[in-house]
């Protein structure tokens, strides 16, 4: 197949296909901007001992903080990629029919799959191009040094050209490869698309072990650092990074994968305890595809874990500041009232809220797609006299029943991850106080996550009336 033919077939679709391409491109645009921003922060040269005195914000100016700033920007890609993953499911039935049409016209199974993969790749390429354009267009617009010559953003430095080239090539490739992996269970035939049967065994609670291992690995970082410190040695960077980042990632993966088991267990519980039709429909959906929760809520739960960690750190920094004030009062001098860390936590909170909003966009797509793909069964139920409110309640239960315990688990894991950093007692300027959990902020993050789910289900339910119209049942 010629490249031009491939591109024509990849982008020849209905309006829903067009929306999917645009959303995939938009996700790629966001990811490109986030990664380029991270690379730009890392490109800032180290001038002076610890600060450059070139930027307004210490997160950019202090040498020791740039790595964390860049990491936060890269972490923003998690909800963005989750959004892209959900977008790939949008309009899947129509795309399946189109691919089957290609097969009927003589395309091989490989060619049909290639068309689907090319669609994602091309959309991502367009998004990356738009992202590069936005990045370079925004630089002169945002380059506003103040009277002292300090810039709000690092608009005076650029990543290396090879780094930009890697982003431009790697992102579309990763997107295309992801699409290929997602299609591995799909067999495109001339008469339609068949998905190979998924595993039928119920999920087991082994992700709990992953969470425990992750927490232990992360908690062991401080004793390891102390061990090397006691011997006046530098700890190996790879060891500390693997234990810290690897531990955090393992615990996060455990929470996300554990949602599969939670969905299954909660579905079973709901089935046993409730006798109402909405609960029965929701319970059976949860037990028949428990991994849907893990797929759908992955980004949101990652945000909650980071948010819980940030909330605890904010509580820690608050106590530190209070101890500073207390020590100053006792010593009869003026407290420093250094709000740098608390101000930094404000930026972290903004990043988390942005990530939750992006994750919620992915949820809207998932809920909407779930309703549209079941429209015929739903329409038949409504025609049989089942009130739409029963269907709406079942959809709401499907989302709420697994997310509530999953959010609690994510909050606990986030708290435990930073537990070794905060300790049980906080000491500063010779004063000490017991560490108090930031319950208010933790509750706010939990409410934000559950609220995002409720809002997205509400938006998704707008599709229910249209999807249960009698036209869905017409046979002639």
């Amino acid at each position, binding site marked *: 197949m010629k490249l031009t033919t491939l591109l024509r077939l990849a982008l020849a679709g209905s309006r829903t296909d067009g929306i999917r391409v645009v959303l995939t491109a938009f996700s790629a645009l966001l990811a490109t901007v986030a990664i380029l921003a991270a690379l730009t922060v890392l490109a800032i040269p180290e001038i002076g001992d610890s600060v450059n005195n070139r930027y307004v914000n210490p997160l950019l100016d202090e040498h020791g903080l740039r790595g964390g700033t860049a990491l936060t920007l890269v972490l923003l890609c998690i909800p963005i990629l989750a959004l892209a993953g959900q977008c790939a499911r949008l309009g899947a039935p129509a795309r399946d029919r189109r691919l089957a049409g290609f097969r009927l016209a003589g395309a091989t199974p490989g060619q049909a799959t290639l068309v689907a993969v090319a669609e994602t790749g091309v959309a991502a390429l367009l998004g990356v191009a738009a992202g590069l354009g936005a990045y370079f267009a925004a630089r002169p617009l945002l380059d506003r040094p103040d009277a002292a010559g300090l810039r709000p953003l690092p608009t005076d430095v650029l990543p290396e050209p090879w780094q930009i080239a890697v982003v431009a090539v790697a992102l579309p490739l990763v997107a295309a490869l992801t699409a290929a992996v997602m299609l591995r269970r799909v067999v495109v035939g001339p008469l339609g698309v068949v998905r190979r049967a998924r595993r039928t065994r119920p999920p087991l609670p082994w992700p709990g072990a992953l969470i425990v291992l992750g927490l232990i690995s992360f908690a062991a970082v401080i004793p390891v650092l102390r061990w090397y410190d006691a011997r006046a040695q530098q700890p190996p960077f790879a060891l500390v990074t693997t234990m810290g980042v690897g531990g955090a990632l393992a615990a996060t993966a455990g929470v996300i994968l554990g949602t599969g088991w939670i969905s299954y267990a909660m579905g079973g519980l709901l089935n046993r305890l409730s*006798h*109402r*039709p909405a609960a*029965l*429909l929701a319970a*059976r*959906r949860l*037990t*028949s*595809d428990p991994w849907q929760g893990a797929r759908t809520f992955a980004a949101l739960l990652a945000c909650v874990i980071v948010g819980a960690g940030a909330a605890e750190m904010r509580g820690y920094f608050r106590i530190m500041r209070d101890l500073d004030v207390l020590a100053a009062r006792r010593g009869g001098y003026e407290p420093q009232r250094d709000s740098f860390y608390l101000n930094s936590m404000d930026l972290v909170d903004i990043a988390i809220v942005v990530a939750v909003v992006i994750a919620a966009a992915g949820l809207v797509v998932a809920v909407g797609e779930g309703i549209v793909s*079941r429209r*015929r*069964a739903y329409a*038949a*139920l*409504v*025609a*049989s*006299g*089942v*009130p739409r409110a*029963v269907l709406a309640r079942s959809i709401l239960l499907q989302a709420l029943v697994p997310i509530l315990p999953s959010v609690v688990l994510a909050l606990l894991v986030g708290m435990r991850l930073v537990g070794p950093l905060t300790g049980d007692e906080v000491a500063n300027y010779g004063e000490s106080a017991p560490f108090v959990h930031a319950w208010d902020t933790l509750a706010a993050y939990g409410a934000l996550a559950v609220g995002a789910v409720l809002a997205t289900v509400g938006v998704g339910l707008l599709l229910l009336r249209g999807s249960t119209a*009698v036209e869905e*049942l*017409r*046979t*002639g």
Partner: protein
Amino acid sequence: MTILRARGVVKSYGPTPALRGVTIDVAEGEILAVTGPSGCGKSTLLHCLAGILRPDAGEVTYGEHRLDTWPERMRARLRRTEFGVLFQFGQLVAELTAAENVALPLLLAGTGRREARTAAVAWLDRLGVAELADTRPGEMSGGQQQRCAVARALVTEPRVLFADEPTGALDSRTSEQLLGELTRVVRRQRTTVVLVTHDVQVAAYADREVALRDGEVDPTGLGLTAITGKHTR
């Protein structure tokens, strides 16, 4: 005695007219076949009679009640309690077992779960698929799925069953078996049936046939069974 009545029913989809003033009566306990070519308005007529759609003009009466003036909430309750509906395919909830699918209308009516399941299994048994009670639709053949759908449509013991091409997705042998079982059950229950079909073999199971053409009752009165002379009782 007439149980359902349509008088001058008109229904359009945007600028396209589907029904242009259809008038028919359905007697209690009869099996009425509505036949006609594709696009003649048979499904639309069935949806109007069942209260799924509201006609643009004309009257639909069930017993003493003017369905065309009722709000959707009341019509939905009527469909749940007095009517049963059966479609060509895709009507079972994929995640529920056969017994749960059949029990669903009873659960909606407030019946206890155990009682609803007992009734559902009994209906599956009557239709010869009791052994599939704990099977999901994806693991059944088309004929088995349709038997479950028939059981679900009849589990509330409705006064009227509306069937829209109920065997359209089945092979002829399975179709005959299903229709044989369906008519046996509804005749025993004295259930009224409005059956939409374009298949003479299916129409032959009916007591009476109304043929539609271009959204109107065919004035010649010559339906599929009249033309072919087929009839199955």
